[in-house]
């Protein structure tokens, strides 16, 4: 649990010297408790107080960075169990595996395929983050060679996976500057693997069959001087994996159990891509910091990346679509024109219904700061002037020959004024988007 102001006060010099800029030590302590002040503002604080307070103010889940540059992956520093409580901060890293026992040609083909897992949907690009190099051959040279090939042949961050310290050392010699995640430490090799990770300044994982042993392993890595640790909770029993992920997140956030205060990684390996992606999406929703899969088909990766986009959006901040004129189907100069707001949920609901009606149409997404129709109207973000400006900006009058605009039924009340401002005939559409297909088929066509 976080320390209270009084707990902190007991650790301060209690001299009320004002050197920190606050009138009393107690006032300073209260601000520290609310995280509105830094301990370094006090020049006289004891080493002991620094140690206690420094630990208490650290985030409950350590931030771990894998890789460098544009594609580096940052995971950890999460504050909540449920996204509606605040938000999830660091999107789960998605990794695809590659084995070092593949023939040269197969290896290159697969790496090429992995590199191309950048997909475009609803106007945005989504991409995987990491390549996990698996030392399946157990051979030191093959592993080192594979690491080299991935390091030079991919823009993605790297995970090196081997339980052999010797093999890991050889692979790291070829790519340590990329700051790969060292995956493979267990109860047999933890000290040596941790020493290696420390030497190369790389983040590392630890694994163990039980949470108790996992905490011991994390402690072992920490003692060796490794600060960026990830807990590996892979396994063949999905239920056990899912429960462990939840338990570790709870331990860190609710019990302030710092030994398990690290982000988690899960390798999901199932021969059936449907099972593999289903489980990866499940673990992604419930707290995995990185998920690694074998599937490298876009039809498997795209839904996984989309699930991540969905769950890591900020629930307090409505997502928006670009405010402009969208053509649905083969819209022509005699096609209907509708407007709605640029709140993405509103827009896509309208777009879905228009598309379902199979009547080509133009939808004007009016910039309301990403709010829904009624919210925007009541906040005066949606009025005749706003709509007229959006119509002008999108040059709607050059797109269609008619001068008729369909408006959301919820704002029927603005039709008179809008007609005046715009000089277009205003048609009041249905109150719910679900009424659009029949509206377009009957009212518009008539």
């Amino acid at each position, binding site marked *: 649990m976080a320390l209270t102001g009084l707990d902190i006060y007991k650790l301060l010099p209690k001299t009320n010297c004002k050197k920190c800029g606050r009138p009393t030590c107690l006032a300073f302590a209260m601000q520290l408790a609310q995280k509105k002040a830094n301990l370094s503002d006090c020049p006289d604080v004891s080493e002991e107080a620094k140690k206690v307070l420094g630990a208490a103010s650290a985030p409950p889940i350590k931030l771990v960075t894998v890789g460098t540059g544009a594609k580096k992956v940052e995971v950890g520093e999460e504050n909540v169990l449920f996204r509606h409580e605040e938000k999830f901060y660091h999107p789960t890293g998605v990794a695809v595996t590659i084995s070092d026992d593949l023939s040269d040609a197969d290896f290159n083909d697969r790496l090429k395929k992995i590199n191309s897992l950048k997909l475009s949907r609803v106007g945005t690009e989504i991409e995987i983050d990491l390549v996990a190099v698996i030392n399946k051959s157990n051979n030191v040279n093959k592993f080192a060679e594979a690491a080299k090939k991935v390091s030079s042949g991919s823009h993605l961050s790297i995970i090196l996976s081997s339980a052999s310290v010797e093999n890991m050392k050889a692979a790291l010699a070829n790519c340590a500057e990329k700051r790969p995640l060292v995956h493979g430490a267990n109860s047999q090799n933890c000290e040596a693997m941790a020493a290696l990770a420390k030497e190369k300044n790389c983040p590392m994982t630890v694994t163990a069959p039980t949470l108790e042993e996992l905490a011991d392993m994390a402690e072992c890595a920490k003692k060796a001087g490794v600060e960026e640790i990830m807990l590996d909770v892979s396994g063949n029993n999905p239920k056990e994996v899912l429960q462990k992920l939840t*338990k570790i997140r709870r331990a860190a956030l609710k019990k302030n159990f710092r030994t398990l205060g690290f982000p988690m990684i899960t390798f999901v390996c199932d021969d059936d891509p449907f099972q593999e992606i289903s489980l990866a999406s499940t673990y992604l929703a419930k707290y995995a910091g990185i998920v690694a899969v074998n599937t490298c088909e876009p039809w498997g990766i795209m839904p996984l990346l989309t699930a991540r986009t969905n769950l890591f959006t900020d629930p307090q901040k409505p997502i928006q679509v670009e405010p402009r004129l969208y053509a649905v189907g083969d819209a022509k100069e005699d096609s209907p024109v509708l407007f709605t707001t640029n709140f993405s949920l509103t827009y896509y609901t309208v777009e879905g219904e228009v598309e379902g009606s199979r009547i080509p149409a133009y939808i004007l997404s009016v910039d309301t700061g990403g709010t829904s129709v009624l919210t925007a109207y009541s906040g005066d973000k949606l009025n005749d002037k706003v709509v007229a400006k959006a119509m002008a900006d999108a040059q709607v009058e050059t797109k269609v020959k008619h001068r008729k605009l369909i408006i959301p039924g919820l704002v029927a009340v603005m039709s008179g004024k809008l007609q005046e401002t715009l000089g277009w005939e205003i048609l009041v559409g249905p109150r719910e988007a679900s009424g659009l297909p029949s509206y377009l088929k009957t009212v518009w066509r008539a």
Partner: protein
Amino acid sequence: MEIPNLADKWSSGVNEITLGATKDNGGTRTKTITIGGSKCVPFMDFEGNPGHKPVVAMDICDVPPDDWSETMSKPFADVLNDPAQWAKKCVEQYGADMICLKLDGIHPDKGNKSAEQAVKTVKSVLAAVGVPLIIWGCEQDEKDNEVMPKVSQAAKGENCLMGIVSQNSYKTLTATCLADGHSLITMAPVDINIGKQINILVSEMDFPLNRIVMFQSTGALGYGLEYTYSIQERERLAALTGDKMMAMPVICDVGREAWRAKEAKSGDSEAPQWGSREERGPMWEAITAVSLLQSGVDIIRMQHPKAVAAVKKCIDRLY
């Protein structure tokens, strides 16, 4: 190293509902389904009874769907004109736990079928399969209020799950379901407060709380899934902490919503970079379902056999 106790304590849980009635209980079902009963966060059975396993209801329709893609239609090409055979195929070949019969054909724009025709369809489906039935109106209030009471009477005693009722239109169907011994789906469009309000309205008509299933309308993967996810998660936490008006099991409409997404339905030539449509569509549906399962769902409506198989297997492995 010793680990603290990580089980959360919950004071309450999700209502338990049995759907379908066998001969002993005045119906003709050969099998009933019990849902709900969970007293823990989904799949976290170390802290409480997980209740009953989530079930999959496969969608069938009284008219052949006019908006299904080729991939979606193919497995059912031989039965799309025959709801009874369609239902049979879902149960016998694809392992559907329940059948959801959608009466789209009664909608004024989609055939405007009469109540008599709907009754005939319902009876044929009841005769063809032994699993419990969900009967879902066309979501046009006037027509539903005309047709659904007759359908309800025709299926009297079968304890079907009937829907949907909303804040704007609930009295007719609530009254008939009460009279004919069915359970009821209350709908609120992605709004937790309206979700609670509609449950209160229905319960004020003396409809028993333990015969209600909640529907928050479903956002597909990529199209608002996160809204549905968080509302359902909040509803589940409310149920676990003792809110009686939020303690109903939850149903999701995954099949229809997922297959409306471009990512699921577009052809290979339209979107070559997205990969084969034969896998892409079912995968989109499956991932919509498994993601929502983590928020707390008791009945998932689904369409494609491949997605159904994947989701059922995933549930078995997590439960």
